[in-house]
């Protein structure tokens, strides 16, 4: 692959992983914790006496955010090496 093609493929792979991460980011916060909270409340799952949506609003979303950033970091380090664009 030419240098230009490599850069394009690298960028496309990056956009793909960013999109996936941001979908999860939106689903746990705007989705589970706000918009779909009533739906989630219909599930027979409670944490500490309250519905799942409340847990996502006060803890679950924050924990997911941390996992997302570290996953993205790990994934991108691998991608940087794979496309040979990492810093030496």
């Amino acid at each position, binding site marked *: 692959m030419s240098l230009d093609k490599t850069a394009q493929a690298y960028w496309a792979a990056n956009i793909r992983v960013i999109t996936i991460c941001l979908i999860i980011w939106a689903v746990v916060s705007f989705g589970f914790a706000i918009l779909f909270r009533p739906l989630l409340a219909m599930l027979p799952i409670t944490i500490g006496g309250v519905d799942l949506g409340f847990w996502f609003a006060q803890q679950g979303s924050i924990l997911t955010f941390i996992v997302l950033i570290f996953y993205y970091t790990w994934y991108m380090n691998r991608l940087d090496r794979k496309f040979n664009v990492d*810093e030496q």
Partner: protein
Amino acid sequence: MDQFTLNLIVVGSTFALYIGIAIWARAGTTSDYYAASRGVNPIVNGAATAADWMSAASFISMAGLIAFVGYGNSSFLMGWTGGYVLLALLLAPYLRKFGRFTVPEFIGDRFYSTTARITAVICLLVISITYVIGQMTGAGVAFSRFLEVQNTTGLLIASTVVFIYAVLGGMKGITYTQLAQYCVLITAYTIPAVFISLQLTGNPVPPLGLFSTHAESGLPLLSKLDQVLTELGFHDYTGHHGSTLNMFLFTLSLMVGTAGLPHVIIRFFTVPKVADARKSAGWALVFIALLYLTAPAVGAMAKLNIITTIYPDGTAAEPIRYDDRPDWMHNWEQTGLLAFEDKNDDGRIQYYNDRSEEFAPIAEARGWEGNEIVTFNQDILVLANPEIAQLPPWVLALIAAGGLAAALSTAAGLLLAISSAISHDLLKSVFAPNITDKQELLYARISMAFAIALATWLGLNPPGFAAQVVALAFGLAAATLFPALMMGIFSKKMNTHGAVAGMLVGLIATCLYIFTYLGWFFIPGTNMLANTQENWLFGISPLSFGAVGAMLNFATAIIVMKLTKAPPPEIQELVESIRVPRGAGAASDH
């Protein structure tokens, strides 16, 4: 030893530590001064970012903010943490690769225009100056509360300390003091939280305690809290009582605003590599989450604890007699943060929601004539915790040092963002491009001294809108800088006309919307419409408008871009180069 002496010793020794660090980390070049020579370990930068980010308000008011509303204010928790995902994925690595010193510098270079750079400087100054006022007043309040000095004296001491380490050390000094400040503030926050959690639930980890069983009643803690609140005519804690649209937009505004705050972004310029910028954002969020997962637990537990203290035999029985109230209530009455008024002259403290129409008949039947806790400042939930949990006096001294650490660390970060915009973006780039590195360093220090003087003056004469300004800062960061930065990286075709038009539309629309409801420049009485839900456009609160402003910015920029000339080829190459990590080392020698 009395509490005052102890506070003085603990606060005094933390200040000595900060000044010691400043002397050790003196800046010798502009690269030291603006970006700590890009030699900061990513985990250290994470802790520094956390201290930079968490203000006096996070430390003192966050728990109360959640506890007095319950579920509805979860927006703050998600908004102020979710922004870091945007930073890590969309901005930090690319801005680090670009390898310059300030946010307006990126916007100016990427959009090949001094107009764009100046527009960004204006946005930055409005955002950071409004934000710093709150920090300075916060530091003054913390001083006067813990060290029994006048507000003014407290503020002047705080400014002097910041002056010493910020002028001397610049970013380098600020980074390592922020690391120390993070350690102080998180220790101070965690110790009382662990004890209150142990006391109420038997679980030493507060975030787990929040979702476990209330030891006294055997019910889940949150169910117990819902129960006592509804029995006193309040909303239940876990229920959703506001507008879903506003909660959605407010959370989004806080997230996007967080990612667009210049004083947070510049922290990511200090790490050696692009990969470190990503990692550092992750660690920053870990360190922030330690406090943000604890705060809602502290809030809920302290609130339940206070209610069960007032109603020792349950809400159906008589509340405690005023003369039997615990010592900590007595102590905090002196500060004016807590005040009782025996409206029905029965010598007891009735705490209930006297605005609830449904509860009114019950209150009347019990002979209650109004809520008798007439002042219940939300900050009490954090400040009085050590006394409520009967912890030794040094814990309260630690809280004092923690509150001050939170205020000073955020103020210092903001002041650096302000002063580097003045010295680097205005003086060096526009007015005096030929100055040497040594001269620029001098100008940077003078700008810092000027910024501190300005912030101190504003802290002494707060414009009377301290509460609203933070909303304005987030709204503007969301509506102006974030879209410009993101499009600068993700759209090769975005040109100067689009970016400038977008920033201006975002800036003007957000200011207009906020001023319409909160008054022109927040001057009371000058608002054109009452700040009520019926008057809001589509029911959108002025506090939630930042997300709308950001959308307007994106839309305007894209339309204008389509109608105007594409950026020159070298700019498109620049965008391609910031998208790949390789070569960031070279940029750091710039």
